[in-house]
């Protein structure tokens, strides 16, 4: 009969807090709520000492059941000695000295999974029925899953936006007719090379006689010529080089290396030769050529984009002056020659 009476608070508490334990005055478990039994495993914990099964991490307790009793009402952080990874929260409440509602001078310890809930649910195969009807544990699990689903959706959205941004940037830097990079690409490419301190060579190519192809054979033929020029330029450069169509029939090639004078001259010659190959379009023959001005980053103590572009332009101008289909490499005296030329032109007028 006495054991029935000592179990009485247990049956009530099974509903109210299914993860509770009733301890006797020596700290031995006399009753375990249904969820506590599930968590403690098939071996019935009745008769075992609470402190043998559980390690109370915080607050630090005086040894034995007296320590537990002294901490009554405080939040206990404890772990199962068999499953130290799952943190439990608990609270102990002392029972009175008579047999009124349980073992005299015993304790009730109610437990819950704090933040360790998610691991615990998987480990102990808990269902909603294992939690008190008022417990928010299931709502917390709901929120965790809902959060994961929403985060997943946002992550996918970000990835798609990232992809779209990269595509838009690529498009913004691409010339749609030739597939070459466009003028907008010039600045970032050269700045990158300068920032890296890399040696590079800048080539400014202007097509000769292109306007007459456009005028006599039409714009479609002109487009055809431009696409062939683009193909030749791509074939004559390496993947680390950059080919940019900066204007209608103007191109800038950036070679990511310091070419020797001889190699640069040879490269320009070969390009011009290939550009001069006749192209037949609808029975008509289109002939173009190209003039090239070049400069190298090694010409400058500190290479600057605007200065290098000006110098390549100057060299191109000199090439055009020297007759079509020529290459001129920039040298400082070109600047003086042009200055003189400009003065001559102004005074001779």
């Amino acid at each position, binding site marked *: 009969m006495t054991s029935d009476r000592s179990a009485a608070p247990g049956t009530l508490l099974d509903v109210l807090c299914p993860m509770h334990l009733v301890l006797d005055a020596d700290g031995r478990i006399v009753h375990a709520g249904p969820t506590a039994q599930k968590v403690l495993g098939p071996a019935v914990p009745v008769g075992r000492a609470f402190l043998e099964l559980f390690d109370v991490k915080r607050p630090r307790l005086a040894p034995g059941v007296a320590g537990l009793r002294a901490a009554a009402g405080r939040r206990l952080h404890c772990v199962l000695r068999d499953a130290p990874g799952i943190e439990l929260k608990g609270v102990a409440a002392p029972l009175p000295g008579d047999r009124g509602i349980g073992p005299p001078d015993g304790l009730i310890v109610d437990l819950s999974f704090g933040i360790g809930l998610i691991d615990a*649910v998987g480990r102990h195969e808990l269902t909603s029925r294992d939690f008190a009807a008022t417990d928010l544990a*299931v709502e917390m699990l709901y929120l*965790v899953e*809902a959060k994961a689903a929403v985060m997943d*959706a946002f992550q996918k959205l970000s990835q798609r936006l990232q992809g779209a941004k990269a595509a838009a940037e690529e498009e913004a830097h691409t010339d749609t007719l030739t597939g070459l990079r466009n003028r907008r690409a010039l600045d970032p490419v050269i700045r990158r090379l300068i920032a890296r301190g890399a040696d590079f060579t800048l080539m400014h190519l202007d097509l000769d006689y292109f306007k007459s192809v456009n005028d006599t054979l039409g714009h479609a033929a002109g487009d055809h010529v431009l696409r062939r020029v683009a193909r030749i330029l791509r074939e004559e450069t390496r993947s680390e080089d950059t080919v940019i169509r900066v204007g209608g029939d103007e191109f800038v090639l950036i070679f990511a290396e310091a070419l020797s004078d001889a190699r640069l001259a040879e490269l320009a010659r070969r390009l011009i030769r290939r550009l001069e190959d006749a192209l037949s379009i609808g029975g008509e023959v289109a002939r173009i050529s190209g003039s090239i001005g070049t400069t190298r980053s090694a010409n400058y103590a500190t290479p600057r984009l605007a200065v290098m572009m000006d110098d390549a332009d100057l060299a191109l101008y000199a090439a055009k002056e020297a007759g079509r289909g020529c290459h001129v490499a920039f040298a400082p005296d070109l600047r003086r020659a042009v200055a003189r030329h400009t003065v001559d032109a102004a005074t001779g007028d």
Partner: protein
Amino acid sequence: MHGLINRAIELFVRDTYGQDTWGEVAGRSELVPQDFEAMLDYPDAVTRDVLAGVSRVLDKPEAAILEDIGTYLVSHPTAEALRRLLRFSGTDFTDFLHSLDDLPARARLAVPQLILPPIELHDHDGHRFSVAVGAGRSGGLSFGYVLLGLLRAMADDYGVLVTLDHKGRRDGVETIEVRVLETAFARGRSFSLGAAL
């Protein structure tokens, strides 16, 4: 309308009738791009337009399409995450019915911008229920039909035999009658709390 709702309509059409059917719907509604982003907001008119387009392309009344969408949301593998979230609401079907009033709040807990119309359950005798679905800010969408399809699929999920009846709309409130005939009709689908984690 929240993108999740538009995306649900889109995925329902894609998964049930194929990509081409969706292409036709999107083309008719002049959707650019042709897919919805679940986490962006769209004007209500877009949803109405798309739904009307689905109805025309499938030659089916909108109410039937909304009901099918409700069923799809619980039973199709694409929407498994949602089925799980719904199952958190109740340990059995009756428990689930009693949690319907909380559904808009639960939705908001997951996605604060997702506003569902208010839902109110009336328990007549433990077997007969009626569910009132208010107009709320549903943008003219008859959410009651979606809920009808959803309840049908949830009953299956719990293995319960029910009859469901949409009683129409009065003063902006739709009413669904639910009759639970047998609570252990079939085994239902399994649900464990930690399965997705």
